Every structure is written in structure tokens, then in C-alpha cells.
């Protein structure tokens, strides 16, 4: 096994913390958005869908660049944080969270939207006719029927956030313990020709990605029993 140095372990913990925070927030905020997208007939739907998918089609540096500007002292988000008396977001962990959320939105919202759209309206009507209001219907019918959608969204959101580089480099820079993530640490090692350390971290990332996918597809095979379909 390759040795892991303290700074590498810091980077790993920071990456995990960032991914967990981003995934949690995205599941929480993405659920109502995905529900709206799956059910609405509003003319705005197409535009919102396009915006949700947009990060997929942009080079990460483009998104990172604009977020850096927006969060800077002259940008709208920067003005907002200043007005609220908060610290500026660039080169902070919070700034990484906000930017990573934007970048990972499609990976969370799309699986949720697909899962919600595949629930027949009749199921919701049946629940309503059995005295279940909207919240109970969501908790007892929609959530269990879209279990797989949530699992996919969580795994994709987490894995995608762990793996990003361009966006976080633009917005976060390279501050140890604050914004120096695993992907950036690897880059630093390679720059310094320290291949064994780069190997240790990079190999771990490969193993991690594989395990996440195994989890996802492992459950996918077992879907029939999981969903009782």
C-alpha cells in the first residue's frame, strides 16, 4: 500500500465532507424541483429543464469562472453576501458548496424527475380517495415508489462532486484544509513529479468510483424485489 500523508488524509476528508453536504442539500432542494418538473404543464418547464441540464454542456472552468465573478465583490452573489454581513464566498468551503451544487444539479434532479414521472397519476388519486392528503401521499406512495430514483440521484450526485476539478480549482483555489480537495491534491503531486503519492490517491479514487457504481448497479439488479414490481 502507498503511504498517505496527513495532508492527503485532510484532502480526502474535505472531499467527503463537500460531497456529503452538496448531495444532502441537492436531494432536499432538488426533490420539489424534480416533482414540479415531472408534473407541471407550465410553459416555463422547457426553460427550467434546459437550465438544469446546462452544467452538463459547459466546460467546468466556464461555470467556475462565472461563479467566481458572481461571488466576487462586484458580482450579484457577492453583493448579497456583503449586504447580509457575511464573509465573501470565493476561496471558502461555502463557496465550493454553492458552486458544486450548481454543477451537480442535473445528476440529482434528472433521476428524481424520471422516477416521479413514472408514477401513474392514478396511484396519487387512489391515495387521495383513501383520505391521504398531499404530504401523506408523498411520504407513503411517492417516496417508496421512487426509492431507486433517490438512490441513483444520491450516488450520482456524490460521485460527481467528489470527482470535479475545474470548477473547484476556479472557485476554491488551493487552501489546505479549506478548499484543497482530493482532485487538486493529485494535481499538485503530479506537478511536483511525486508519482507514488499521486498513485496512492488516484488509485483510491478509481476504487471508490467503482464501489459507488457497484452499489448502484448491484441494487439495480435487485430492483424487482426492492420495488415489489
Amino acid at each position, binding site marked *: 500500500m502507498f503511504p498517505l500523508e496527513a495532508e492527503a488524509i485532510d484532502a480526502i476528508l474535505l472531499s467527503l465532507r463537500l460531497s456529503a453536504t452538496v448531495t444532502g442539500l441537492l436531494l432536499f432542494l432538488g426533490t420539489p424541483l424534480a416533482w414540479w418538473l415531472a408534473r407541471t404543464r407550465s410553459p416555463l418547464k422547457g426553460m427550467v429543464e434546459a437550465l438544469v441540464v446546462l452544467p452538463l454542456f459547459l466546460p467546468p472552468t466556464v461555470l467556475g469562472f462565472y461563479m467566481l465573478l458572481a461571488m466576487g465583490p462586484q458580482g450579484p452573489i457577492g453583493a448579497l453576501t456583503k449586504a447580509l454581513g457575511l464573509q465573501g464566498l470565493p476561496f471558502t468551503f461555502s463557496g465550493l458548496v454553492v458552486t458544486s451544487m450548481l454543477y451537480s444539479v442535473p445528476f440529482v434532479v434528472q433521476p428524481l424527475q424520471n422516477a416521479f414521472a413514472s408514477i401513474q397519476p*392514478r396511484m396519487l*388519486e387512489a391515495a387521495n380517495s383513501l383520505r391521504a392528503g398531499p404530504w401523506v401521499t408523498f411520504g407513503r406512495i411517492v417516496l417508496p415508489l421512487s426509492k431507486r430514483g433517490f438512490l441513483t440521484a444520491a450516488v450520482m450526485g456524490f460521485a460527481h462532486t467528489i470527482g470535479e476539478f475545474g470548477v473547484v480549482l476556479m472557485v476554491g483555489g488551493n487552501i489546505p484544509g479549506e478548499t484543497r480537495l482530493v482532485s487538486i491534491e493529485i494535481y499538485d503531486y503530479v506537478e511536483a513529479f511525486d508519482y507514488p503519492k499521486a498513485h496512492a490517491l488516484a488509485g483510491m479514487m478509481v476504487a471508490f468510483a467503482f464501489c459507488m457504481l457497484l452499489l448502484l448497479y448491484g441494487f439495480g439488479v435487485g430492483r424487482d424485489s426492492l420495488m415489489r414490481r
Partner: protein
Amino acid sequence: MIKARFDRKLGDFRLQIDLALPSRGVTIIFGASGSGKTTFLRCMAGLTPEARGYLAVGDQVWQDDDRGIYLPCHRRPIGYVFQDAALFPHLTVEKNLLFGLQRVAPELRWISMDQAIKLLGIGQLLQRDPCHLSGGEQQRVALARALLTSPQILLLDEPLAALDLPMKREILPYLERLRLELNIPIIYVTHALDELTRLGDHLIQMDQGRVTREGPIAAALSWVTHSADPEGEWGGVLFTLVAGHDRLSGLTDLTFEGGALKVSLVDRPVGTMVRLRVKPNDISLALNKAMATSILNIVDVLITDITTTPDPYQVMVHLAIGKTSLTARITLYSLRNLKLAPGMRVFAQIKAVSLLI
């Protein structure tokens, strides 16, 4: 009394209803597909909030747009059964049943889990998953699930339409049992004459979003069968009363407006109403009343109409006995031979009847 008034536009289609429905028995909403009968039922259930109108069940107002009253579906004490059962796939049969039951306060319940399970004969299915049930079983579970919310009205949207004939036969007796044993009104949407004649007490006929005719079943049946089945292929229904039993001969005497019949023993008390279906092939016509014959039932009828059938050598003779109409299929040869014509009185020899309820 249930008072319903609805107005709903959906593209070219417009539902316009203004009705008072009886608060007892089975009210059949009958009509071709696209006539608006399911839309009407959904309006009553509160599943189409877009519909404007008024709905009061007993003394409770569920919807009144003039006063800004609208109870959403989950606050209406209804039981609703969909055409395709709509059981929750991730819950067992038992949990499906409990889903609605849990949400009804114990003091408002008029039926227990055990009673509902027994009434619909689903005791063996409780631990099964809905996907492992037959269509008929699914529909019985859906009926029990709806009943367990102790509704004040039961709304059934073509509950047999998705089933094949053997399954229909399996589930009809359960529906008859509900009709006899429940004290709540049942609104039953269908386009099948079978279900209408077996289950209906009151009839509403719809066409293109409007009510075309309405009335108690006995009076309404002839015009409905006539419009749904102009050829008379389905036959006629006799509403009879049990007058007495001749146990020695194994026969029951039935009386009806315009005559009497003897049929194989019907195990019902004297005075009960019995519905009989008479098929066109089971009636033959005679100019004179045959005296020495093995046919038990010969009634005096009036010929109202004579129509053609797909078979060029056969005709359909439409008959009236009091308010009841029957049809007889005879050969063109006999028609000419007997010189039958509308307005003539003849004798109908009824060879067989089938018991509906």
C-alpha cells in the same frame, strides 16, 4: 338525496349535469365511452378540481362555487374504485387495506377489517403482493380497501371493464352482495347491459356530456336496452315478484305486470323481486294459445315493431307486455306464414329464462 350540478369544458367536450340522485341503492350511470360518465364520477369524487358546480350529499355540501366551498378529494367521505384497481404495488394486500382504514377515526367506522375481508372473500390474499393477484382478486381488494374508509357513498368506475368474462362472473356476486348488504348509495359507471340489469336500482343515461334520460330501473330499462341494443339481440328483462313455490313439481310462480310465469324453483321468499332475462331465441310466437303443450309459459303480447337481423332469413319481433319489452327472433318464413305485423296481439311461448337476481 344527492344533488349534483357540474359544468366542465375539455376541448370540444362539455359536461353539463344537473341531477338529483337517490341516496339509497345502486344508481347506474350508463352511456357509450366518451359520454362523460367517468368525468361525472370524478367530479363527484373531487378528482377534477377544474369542474365548476355544486354537490351536496345528504345535508353536507362538498362543493359550491357560489359560496367558495370545495372539499378536496381526501376530505370527502367517498370510496372510489378505479377501472384498473390501482392497488399500491409496494404494499401487501393487507397494507393496502390498512392504508385507508388508518386514516378514519374509529368512531366513524361502520365496517371492520374482518367484515370487509369476509364480505369480499379475500382472507387468503392478505400477505400477497398485488402483482401476484388475478384481475378479479385485485378488484375485490380494491373494493374492500374503498369500503374500509367507511365511506358515505361508493363510486365505482367501470370496475369490471378491464376483466374477462370468467372474472366478471366471479366478481358480480360480490357486487350483488354489496348492493344488498350496504346501507350507502352506490354510483356505478358502466356501459355493460349485463351489469346494469343485475345491479341497478336507478338509471341515468348519458350522451355527449349530458343526461339524456333518468328513472327507476323498471321503467327505464326498456328505453336503455333499446338505445344500447337497438337490434334487440340482448333480449328483455322481466321484473317479477315471487308469488309462491310448488316444491312438489320443483317450480316457482312469478307474477309481473301483464302476466305470470312458472320457472324452476327459485330459492327466494315469497314477495321478493326477481329479475329475469329472456333471450330472443327463447321466445316463439303463436296466433292461438296452444292448449296441449309442454311449454309452461305462454303470455299475451303486443307486437310493436319488426326489424331485420344480420341473418337475412331471420327477423326480430319486438313485443310489449305492459311496460316490459321483449324480443323474439323468428324466421322470415314464419313471419310471412303467420302474417305478423306491428299492432297485432299474439301469444309468446317462453321456452327459457335466466335468473339475474
